[in-house]
């Protein structure tokens, strides 16, 4: 992988070059050598600054007063600066480091520099703002401030791959009225042109590496990922977490711009079985890597909402049906499990199903409700499903509240819910107790985390296997073009119903664990939107943010949406607001989500990548619903 022969873009890249549909040019005109020197100098200054004191009081989170070694947010700056420096050296051609930028573009360096700049400036500004004025900064803070700026400026002076200039007559419909003002249009065109371009990365094939080395890389990357994750969870203060997020998000973006991520993808694709095994092992290692029940609780919660989101992804991402009451199916599963859990508050308090039976019961009940809701509506126009599921999600809570023997038959114990749900015991292993495994201890939530991991793996398997099969293809076909799909012999109604019922069942399955983890089920959490997951809007957002139609997307989306508010407690009041705005922005600017599905990405950016061949328009058909109903 290191220094494999690179066809294009070597040392001789001129200051400005245009090839293919991208343009390579610096933003700041500087000789190449000067630009490189500036970048490296900036990195060195920044690194050095982290060993100095940035502020003189310990009031700022993480204690940045110590000279000699970095602490708190300084670590973020340090990691950012080292990464930028090392990657820059590789990009500049230093033998032995070249593998860090397989694509040989400077974009990665720029983004890493941006990460460093972001976290450093955030820290410095945060110190000044929190402690009240620039006076609180020690010289080290100023050095860091300048160093990061130098680093970023240096990176801007490197030749960067950018978007081609748009033709002069391009339309900017998003400008609206302002489209008439030429200055605005020019400015906007310049901005658009300034966008970095790294969609067509040409990287050397990582699969040529030695097989064992490939596997080693995979193990190391996963282990590093786990370490980074636990590090982030362990941050004590919102401030440090924000710095961490900046470095992580922009840094990963930078590494992917450099091509490393693509190579890693090649590796995991090439060693599918191995990498998924390592992935599972890493996930198992999570509760062992730290002895902290809070994180295990977090992990279990993330897995629950992630799994439910993945189930929703079958309905929304694969089949293209909008289910706005999905959380109700989770509720059906949870209530079913609670009823057969042996809780004294259950109407069948004597009955205690073994877990497998309870899980099946939960799935079954959710499936029945899925069919009951889906059957009347899935024959109709797609939009009707949205309103009916939304209504169902609302009345589920109301019905459950009413079934208390006062305003309805006694089933769910009404608003009090079913409390004191006993912990699960699987093969004599009581999940409520603390167990010792070797030198590790597994607390209650760690146990549930591991159980939930098994469920997640099952759901992932169901998702991937179903997606890549006759039924999965018919779901996607329905999503793509329902009329054509029915003309291919697909019974749209039946196939959609299967997807809907399967989605409901998977939510029900997760619900059974949810009931046991929280010890009680009550009606209140099953709402359309609320500040706390799981709620239908949260699940939908997790799917959308992560990437519709993908496996890892919803889980990642759920994790982000779950963990970030936990860490940024000062945001909590504005959480839902931010949530709404995020949905709008994602749909507008990155509808394919963080992890784009190859198909989706193309579909959403239709305007930008015109399909070859002019397809004549003209509709000659009406859809099946008209004739079929």
């Amino acid at each position: 992988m290191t220094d494999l022969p690179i066809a294009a873009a070597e040392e001789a890249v001129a200051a400005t070059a245009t090839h293919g549909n991208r343009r390579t040019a610096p933003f700041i005109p500087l000789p190449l050598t000067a630009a490189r020197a500036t970048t490296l100098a900036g990195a060195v200054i920044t690194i050095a600054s982290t060993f100095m004191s940035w502020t003189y009081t310990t009031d700022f989170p993480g204690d940045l007063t110590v000279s000699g070694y970095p602490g708190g947010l300084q670590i973020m700056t340090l990691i950012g600066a080292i990464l930028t420096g090392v990657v820059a050296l590789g990009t500049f051609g230093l033998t032995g480091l070249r593998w860090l930028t397989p694509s040989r573009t400077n974009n990665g360096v720029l983004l890493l520099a941006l990460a460093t700049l972001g976290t450093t400036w955030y820290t410095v500004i945060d110190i000044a703002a929190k402690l009240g004025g620039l006076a609180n900064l020690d010289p080290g803070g100023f050095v860091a401030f300048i160093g990061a700026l130098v680093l970023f400026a240096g990176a801007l002076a490197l030749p960067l791959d950018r978007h081609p200039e748009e033709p002069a007559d391009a339309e900017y419909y998003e400008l609206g009225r302002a489209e008439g003002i030429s200055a605005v249009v020019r400015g906007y065109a310049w901005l658009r042109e300034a966008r970095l371009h790294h969609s067509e990365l040409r990287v050397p094939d990582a699969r040529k590496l030695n097989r064992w080395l490939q596997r080693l890389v995979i193990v190391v990357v996963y282990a590093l990922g786990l370490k980074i994750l636990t590090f982030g969870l362990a941050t004590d203060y919102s401030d440090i977490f924000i710095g961490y997020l900046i470095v992580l998000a922009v840094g990963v973006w930078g590494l992917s711009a450099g091509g490393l991520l693509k190579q890693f993808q090649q590796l995991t694709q090439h060693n599918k079985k191995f990498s998924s095994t390592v992935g599972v092992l890493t996930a198992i290692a999570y509760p062992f890597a730290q002895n902290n029940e809070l994180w295990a609780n977090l992990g279990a919660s993330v897995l629950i909402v992630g799994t439910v989101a993945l189930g929703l992804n079958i309905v929304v991402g694969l089949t293209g049906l909008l289910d706005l009451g999905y959380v109700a199916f989770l509720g059906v599963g949870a209530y079913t499990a609670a009823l057969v859990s042996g809780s004294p508050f259950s109407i069948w308090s004597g009955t205690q199903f073994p877990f497998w039976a309870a899980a099946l019961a939960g799935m079954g009940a959710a499936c029945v409700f899925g069919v009951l809701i889906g059957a009347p509506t899935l024959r109709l126009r797609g939009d009707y499903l949205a309103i009916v599921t939304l209504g169902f999600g609302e009345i589920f809570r109301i019905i459950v509240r009413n079934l208390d023997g006062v305003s309805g038959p006694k089933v769910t114990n009404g608003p009090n819910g079913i409390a004191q749900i006993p912990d699960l015991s699987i093969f004599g292993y009581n999940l409520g107790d603390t167990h010792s495994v070797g030198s590790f201890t597994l607390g209650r939530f760690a146990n549930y985390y591991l159980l939930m991991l098994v469920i997640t793996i099952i759901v992932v398997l169901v998702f991937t296997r179903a997606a890549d099969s006759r039924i999965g293809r018919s779901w996607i076909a329905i999503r793509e073009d329902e009329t054509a799909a029915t003309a291919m012999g697909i019974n749209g109604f039946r196939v959609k119903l299967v997807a809907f019922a399967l989605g409901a069942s998977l939510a029900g399955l997760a619900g059974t664990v949810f009931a046991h983890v929280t010890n009680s089920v009550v009606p209140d959490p099953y709402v359309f939107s609320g500040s706390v997951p799981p709620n239908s809007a949260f699940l939908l957002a997790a799917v959308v943010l992560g990437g519709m139609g993908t496996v890892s997307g919803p889980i990642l989306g759920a994790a982000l949406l779950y963990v970030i508010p936990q860490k940024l407690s000062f945001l909590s009041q504005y959480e839902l607001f931010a949530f709404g705005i995020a949905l709008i922005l994602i749909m507008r600017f990155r509808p394919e989500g963080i992890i784009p599905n190859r198909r989706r990405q193309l579909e959403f950016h239709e305007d930008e990548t015109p399909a070859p061949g002019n397809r004549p328009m003209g509709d000659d058909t009406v859809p099946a619903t008209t004739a079929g109903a």
Partner: protein
Amino acid sequence: MRHRSLLILTSVLATGALTLTACGSRSDDSKKGGDNSSGGSKTTVVIGVDAPLTGANSATGLGIQYGVQIAVDDANAKNLVPGVTFKVKALDDKAQPATGQTNATALVQESDVIAAVGPLNSGVAQSMQQVFESAKMVEISPSNTNPALTQGKDWATGTKTRPFTTYFRTATTDANQGNFAADYAVNTLKKKSAFVVDDKQTYGAGLAGIFQGKFKSLGGKIAGTDHVNTGDTDFSALVTKIKNSHADMVYYGGQYDESELVTKQLKAAGVHIPLMGGDGMYSDTYIKTAGQAAEGDLATSVGVPVETLPAAKTFIDTYKSKGYPGDYGTYGGYSYDAATAIIKAVKTVMDANGGKLPSDARAKLVDAVQKTDFDGIAGHVSFDQYGDTTNKQLTVYQVKGGKWTAVKTGVYNG
């Protein structure tokens, strides 16, 4: 060769990252050490608070947080427990059980948290009880009213069993309030026929159920019952039903959000009968929104009127002067008392251990809290064998001239 350089670099990066993270924790440790040295020999003991601090219930939740805060400040100022500085760690449960549970886990996880006050909602408490029980950590709720939380599921039939030994509450259960209200309605107001409405929430449904039972047993007639959903605003159909039932009073189990609209629409339709409720509607907001329509409406609340207790007055003055957000009126006093109970128990435990905090302080605290006995700002504080408050002091308030006025104070001995 090239492969080797890759290997080396990867491992360098990995170890680099690991070392750095180690650095991170080291600097944090040193910070803690610094705190201790600067604070002399004082131990810091943290009291956790769990309540909804954001969202729709935040006003009440913040009242709990700052009620505890004032108790802690008082204790620190008076040096109630020598050698100990108390601190508050407040977590936001957003009125959601799962979040409450996460918060409980977080509080348990932190070694300097000794006990917790909260939560606001009974539904949230159910998910937290087990966590605190496993950790042998005291939890005192200032507001949970569901009797099953302390007395087990069969409390209504008289077979009471305590499910969790670490759970206490300074709020009285629905049972006392509902019975007291029914007693007042029949015997003092001489009401014959009541229409009972509730909002299908733990608190409201429980209260309405108990009122209904007592009212009937005292010889009153239940003219009708109905249930509403929280968030409903149109009660015209309900009002028509009430009007048609010819009831001479309405009992509403629930919060003021709905009851203020009910009473308004009721009076607008020309049905001039009083609406009575529990402490969930004993709030100035009720009067503000319902306006003239609220006149004559009644609410029960636990404890004696605050004006009669100097301690309570000081509490309210402090709350106001500090400019704390939230609503101290409903549960602030109980929160203060709950925190004080914990603080006093810490003192007991430390006194028994030679003035030092024992290593199993949390577990020892459970016994100490159980034996709590002092006069708080909302009445006498002590706990019975179920963890319920023994304070059965209740007051009936009536809206007179746009203000809640105490009309009867008494003890319910049901």
